[in-house]
């Protein structure tokens, strides 16, 4: 074989820690390596050309790119191989950035030695690679958009206008989302209803968009090109013939706080969520309606039918039920938005205890009603805003800036001042802040205008709010950090500028779609800079505040970006995928059929082969978990891209540079969670034991008991297997199987007098950075004393006899 090895400097990211020239030279000494080079940026145009031309010129039939993570630039370099005329599956990435240079940046000498072994792992793997064909998957033109706020609306309209079919699902009874609850919008002060209303009404007019309001996504199965969503269309008890005349609400005897109005006014049990609601019709709140409650409790259908009696169009029917609908989709856009921080978690500010302490969103509605001449409450003359409530606060575990609060407090100050001026009144408004962040287009000017209007900005984070129980007035205690004086000031109203967090619905969708979250609790994008609206799940995109706090312009831009990214996949009609599929070494199969029942996807069946009954694998059903391999006693099953030969090759590479009494831990990392987590740990420059070598597998069940034993036998002193949490794994069947495998091997280790803790299995969520570091350090310590050659020999023998006398064989 003629292998070329390329070592990337990554513009200093790697070369400032790892001695890339030494690594390249080391690679050059290895068998079958005919060419080795180091280069500043292999992913640059010139870097790519360099590799492609070498492949042609030198006739390379294997390439190892020692650079970043497979998950980062793997696809880029596969294309480079193709350009050079090499089968893309004859190229391997050796991850010396996320798995070496970054986490070990404090120990450059050790990092260089580790990098050599990681490159060796790539070389040993590529030797066992074989040319494969990517799988082609057909993709239609159906998009599921989850969430009908401004992000979902914008994405749906862009896609609908471009001729794609959109199913827009919104859990509330109207689309419009959080923006519809705002008074006016910064920095232009245009009314939210005026600019949003027009967009909302475009949705039902667009013939390519099916709108499902008052509907919840309950489950999603499948993958890109063949998603299937199950949605519950909750009963509204009011048919589409409703013309929103409102006679029903006039006679309804039940009143309750209107959640859309943040409770500042009440609504009836039959109500319209918003006067410009889309769809524009009434609905019945079944948890409040006397008739529906009585029906459910006692079957009595005659309790309070007042609304039904007055409805001129006979639109009300108390016996309607929820409907379940299945929606097929090729791509999915998640635009589930935000909830605001629960200010009661900051008890020192008195929200919920003091009636004159309000949150920003409530004041939005107070302003709307006052503007419409229906004031709900008087905010008084002196108003104090407290910024960063639920943001930038480690005490609450919320380190992030919510990005909109500075501007919305500034806006509310302006609006209150404007309104007072019109009524010939004056207001004394103070905004207590830590840092004012008015970074958007026109925002700084808006901030300046607000200051000109007389709003005072005081630099200090208030310590507490107290109430005078007789007058109800509230006092803010704060240090003015600029004059270094303590300040205690009484206000008629204190407004808490509450921060943003992922919505409850967003959390639910994240679980259903198995989307990871970043440390701030919002949904995680595939790459913070270059794939800001993609997720790690192919065909699923995120828009708006589900991805992180942002203002309306950014939300709309991101929503259009998701539409474009989804179209990019769908217009081609086909998509290529890695052929991670199980296959059979036909001569080895003796037809025992043990594997058939083990397959979680039922992809295996028995057929008549030339030499008798053998197993056959249906590639279109096989999900590539590799579980079946562990059930085969005759080594007849294997998995493309992760063959036993390839994995053992990587193990050999990982152990190749050991000196003296150095120990090694092999981490078999599932692609979706553990490998990604190891990348994040590297990106976060968090150090862990440098004895750890990471081998990527699709799922933990690919790591058979035999493979674990052989890994020890070849020279590993510890083996760690990482997979996803059960609720988020794409291969739920794998977890119990791996558990059993690990138990079997632990027993063998114990019998051999070896500490069974040298083998560990852990289910990671992609956010568990500290846990990853801790566990890697733990197993490295446990494995610090190297195994003896006698012990390794014993385990090697055990590996050969695993199926003897056991229940797994014939």
């Amino acid at each position, binding site marked *: 074989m003629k292998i070329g090895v390329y070592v990337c400097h990554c513009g200093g990211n790697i070369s400032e820690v790892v001695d890339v020239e030494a690594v390249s030279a080391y690679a050059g000494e290895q068998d079958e390596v005919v060419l080795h080079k180091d280069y500043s940026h292999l992913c640059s145009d010139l870097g790519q050309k360099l590799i492609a031309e070498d492949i042609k010129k030198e006739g390379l039939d294997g390439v190892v790119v020692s650079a970043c993570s497979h998950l980062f630039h793997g696809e880029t370099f596969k294309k480079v191989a193709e350009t050079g005329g090499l089968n893309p599956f004859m190229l391997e990435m050796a991850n010396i950035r996320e798995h070496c240079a970054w986490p070990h940046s404090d120990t450059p000498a050790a990092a260089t030695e580790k990098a050599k072994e990681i490159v060796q792992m790539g070389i040993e793997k590529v030797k066992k690679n074989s040319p494969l064909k990517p799988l082609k998957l057909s993709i239609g033109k159906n998009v599921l958009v989850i969430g009908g706020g401004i992000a979902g609306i914008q994405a749906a309209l862009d896609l609908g206008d471009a001729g794609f079919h959109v199913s827009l699902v919104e859990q509330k009874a109207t689309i419009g989302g959080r923006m519809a609850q705002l008074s006016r919008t910064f920095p232009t002060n245009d009314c939210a209803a005026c600019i949003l209303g027009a967009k909302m009404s475009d949705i039902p007019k667009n013939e390519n968009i099916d709108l499902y309001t008052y509907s919840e996504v309950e489950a999603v199965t499948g993958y890109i090109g063949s998603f299937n969503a199950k949605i519950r269309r909750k009963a509204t008890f009011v048919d589409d013939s409703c013309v929103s005349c409102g006679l029903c609400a006039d006679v309804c005897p039940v009143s309750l706080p209107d959640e859309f109005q943040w409770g500042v006014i009440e609504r009836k049990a039959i109500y319209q969520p918003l006067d410009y609601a889309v769809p524009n019709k009434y609905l019945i709140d079944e948890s409040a309606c006397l008739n529906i409650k009585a029906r459910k409790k006692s079957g009595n259908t005659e309790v309070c039918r007042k609304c039904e009696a007055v409805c001129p169009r006979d639109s009300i029917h108390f016996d309607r039920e929820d409907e379940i609908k299945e929606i097929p989709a090729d791509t999915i856009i998640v635009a589930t938005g935000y909830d605001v921080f629960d200010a009661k978690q900051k008890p*020192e500010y008195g929200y919920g205890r003091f009636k004159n302490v309000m949150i920003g969103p409530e004041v939005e509605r107070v302003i709307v009603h006052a503007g419409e001449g229906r004031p709900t409450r008087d905010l008084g003359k002196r108003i104090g805003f407290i910024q*960063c409530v639920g943001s*930038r*606060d*480690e*005490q609450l575990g919320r380190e992030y800036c919510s990005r909109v609060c500075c501007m919305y407090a500034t806006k509310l100050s302006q609006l209150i001042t404007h309104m007072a001026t019109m009524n010939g009144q004056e207001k004394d408004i103070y905004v207590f802040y*830590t*840092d004012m962040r008015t970074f958007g287009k026109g925002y700084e000017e808006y901030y300046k205008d607000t200051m000109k209007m007389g709003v005072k900005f005081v*630099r*200090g*984070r*208030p*310590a*507490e709010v107290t109430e005078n129980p007789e007058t109800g007035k509230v006092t803010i*205690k*704060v*240090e*003015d*950090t600029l004059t*270094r004086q*303590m300040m205690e000031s009484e206000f008629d109203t204190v407004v808490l500028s509450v921060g943003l967090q992922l919505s409850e619905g967003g959390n639910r969708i994240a679980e259903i779609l198995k989307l990871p979250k970043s440390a701030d609790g919002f949904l995680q994008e595939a790459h913070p800079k270059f794939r800001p609206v993609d997720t790690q799940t192919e065909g699923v995109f995120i828009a708006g505040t589900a991805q992180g706090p942002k203002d309306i312009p950014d939300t709309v831009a991101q929503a259009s970006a998701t539409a474009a990214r989804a179209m990019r996949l769908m217009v081609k009609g086909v998509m290529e995928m890695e052929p991670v599929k199980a296959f059979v070494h036909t001569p080895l199969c003796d037809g025992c059929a043990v594997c058939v029942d083990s397959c979680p996807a039922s992809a295996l069946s028995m057929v008549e082969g030339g030499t008798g009954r053998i197993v056959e694998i249906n590639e279109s059903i096989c999900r590539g978990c590799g579980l079946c391999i562990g059930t085969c006693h005759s080594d007849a099953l294997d998995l493309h891209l992760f063959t036993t030969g390839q994995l053992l090759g990587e193990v050999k590479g990982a152990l190749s540079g050991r000196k003296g009494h150095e120990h090694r831990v092999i981490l078999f990392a599932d692609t979706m969670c553990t490998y990604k987590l190891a990348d994040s740990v590297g990106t976060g420059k968090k150090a862990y034991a440098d004895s750890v070598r990471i081998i990527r597998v699709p799922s933990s069940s690919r790591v058979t008991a035999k493979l674990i034993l052989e890994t020890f036998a070849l020279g590993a002193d510890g083996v760690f297997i990482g997979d996803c949490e059960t609720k988020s794994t794409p291969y739920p069947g794998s977890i119990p199987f791996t558990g059993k495998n690990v138990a079997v091997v632990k027993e063998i280790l114990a019998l051999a007098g070896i500490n069974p803790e040298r083998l560990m299995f852990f289910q990671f969520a992609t956010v568990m950075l500290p846990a990853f570091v801790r566990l890697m350090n733990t197993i490295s310590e446990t494995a610090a004393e190297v195994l003896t050659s006698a012990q390794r020999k014993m385990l090697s023998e055990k590996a050969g006899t695993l199926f003897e006398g056991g229940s797994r064989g014939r």
Partner: protein
Amino acid sequence: MAGKIVLSHHNIDFQKQIEKISGEKITSCDQCGVCSGSCPFTDEMEITPSTMMKMSQLGLPEVMEANSIWICASCFNCMARCPRGLDLSKVAEALRQISLRQAVDSITIENIDKEEAARLPSIALVGAFRKLTG
């Protein structure tokens, strides 16, 4: 008259010394002032707790001249609310340690009235040499 600060490497040394003794990363203080509002003794202090943090960040030795570091009772109210998770009582303790190690007496024993000296508890006398609680 507005003061003037001229910074030199001595300031960095002092800042690092405070960080080493206290174990707190004082440069991460964002000067929000929530500590000052939360401290039950700010009214008795010559400089507010947040000022103590700012002066420590900048490594200004004058921070030890104010009575604040001696008034701090380590009640941890500031720590419980600090949005950057800092423990100011450790910083105050570090400043007290540095001050004590300089071994500068703030009173002279000869200047104390004999009768008064007889009346004072000895621990108060010892404290008064080095501490500035007035």
